């Protein structure tokens, strides 16, 4: 058995202590502790559905060592949606624009979109596509996802958010 490590970190604004295995990825550690909004797809960094914010930056949680998150801060799609206006607005826009079909890619898409928009991302379809280029969607064909992010970017530009 791998060594067990206790890590203290902040998840969705709350300080928690988790017991993780030395080799475990952050994705498994989160899901084992009931953060089920973080989805597991490929587990090798290719699909992006496991995307979370680590110290404010979007990362693929399956390629991050859980133990190395000791002392750091994580936000997931659900936590962000419940506590930030920006992500709540992105989630609404996904619903309004029909950007969710099976929904499996959605949490990762929303976190990647949050990272893009909170760093001043513009309503620019090419740049939006680049921002979500590590997130695969097998249902929508991406157009409606780009529409949703574009819509929020436009709202921000017009001072509506």
């Amino acid at each position: 058995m791998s060594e067990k490590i206790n890590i203290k970190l902040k998840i969705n604004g709350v300080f928690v202590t988790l017991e993780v295995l030395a080799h475990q990825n952050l994705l498994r550690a989160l899901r084992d502790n009931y953060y089920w909004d973080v989805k597991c797809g490929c587990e090798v960094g290719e699909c992006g559905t496991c995307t979370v914010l680590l110290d404010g930056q979007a990362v693929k949680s399956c390629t991050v060592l859980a133990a190395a998150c000791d002392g750091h801060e994580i936000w997931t799609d659900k936590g962000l949606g419940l506590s930030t206006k920006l992500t709540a607005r992105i989630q609404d826009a996904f619903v309004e624009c029909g950007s969710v079909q099976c929904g499996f890619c959605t949490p990762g898409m929303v976190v990647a979109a949050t990272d893009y928009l909170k760093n001043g991302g513009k309503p620019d379809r090419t740049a939006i596509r680049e921002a979500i280029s590590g997130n695969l969607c097998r249902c929508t064909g991406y157009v409606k996802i780009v529409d949703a992010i574009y819509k929020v970017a436009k709202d921000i530009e017009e001072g509506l958010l």
Partner: protein
Amino acid sequence: MKEFGYKNATTITEALTLLDGQNARVVAGGTNVLPYIRSGKYTDCRLINIRDIKDLNFIKEDSDRITIGACVTISQLKKSKLILEFVPALHQAACVFADPTICNTATVGGNLASASPAADTAPALLVHDAIVFIKSLNSSRSVPLSEFFKAPGTTVLQRNELITHIEISKQKNSGFIKLGMRKSMSISIVTAASSVTLNDAGIISSCKIALGAVAPTPIRAAHTERFLLSKKPDDDTLSALIKATNLDISPIDDIRASADYRREVTPVMVKRAIKLALYEHC
């Protein structure tokens, strides 16, 4: 059953002590290590996290050199004004690296230590004469990047050694281009980097060309460089590269492309990398 241990290192000395004589492996961003653990390539070792070591995370300049800490992420390279101005090839490589979320964790030290023939930072660093600074508990050494890679996945690094930083020379005329299966999230089919200086008559007075994914390691293209020296970088010269470039490379067939295709397309990539270095477009 997986049997790993874990330690967090907060200083370089602590990391080196943990690596010394132990069955240990460094983890920086983890974008390669976590897939290695999953696939069983890494088994039963102690993982040493170096991502929180502040002394490995900096970008500094002096009169003619830039120094980059091993744990600088690809995103940091992309955003750095110093890199944009003085190491344009590396900026361009960072811009086409994986996708933004991988770039937020992947480090330049990890990219070099993994020694993939397709490592995207390598050709860019090679044309800027990169030197890799390496430490172990009892010694330190520096190795030119051109001598750092040994074979696919193999470098001169020993298990107890750590890359601390990379030093490169400033050069405003450099360029990098990547050919992949798609624009993002792709492992390179061919990459080319160049750094070119012209004299007053518009003749190439110095030139460095490096290539990725067309040999067992990223390489400097010596024949191509010799061919270009003292010539004008016009269309005739750039179209005549093929022979020289094909002497430099030894491509293989893999799932991304055939060796024949790589032979056809590499000279075109070299041509574009040179145009990028000189005119900022290709």
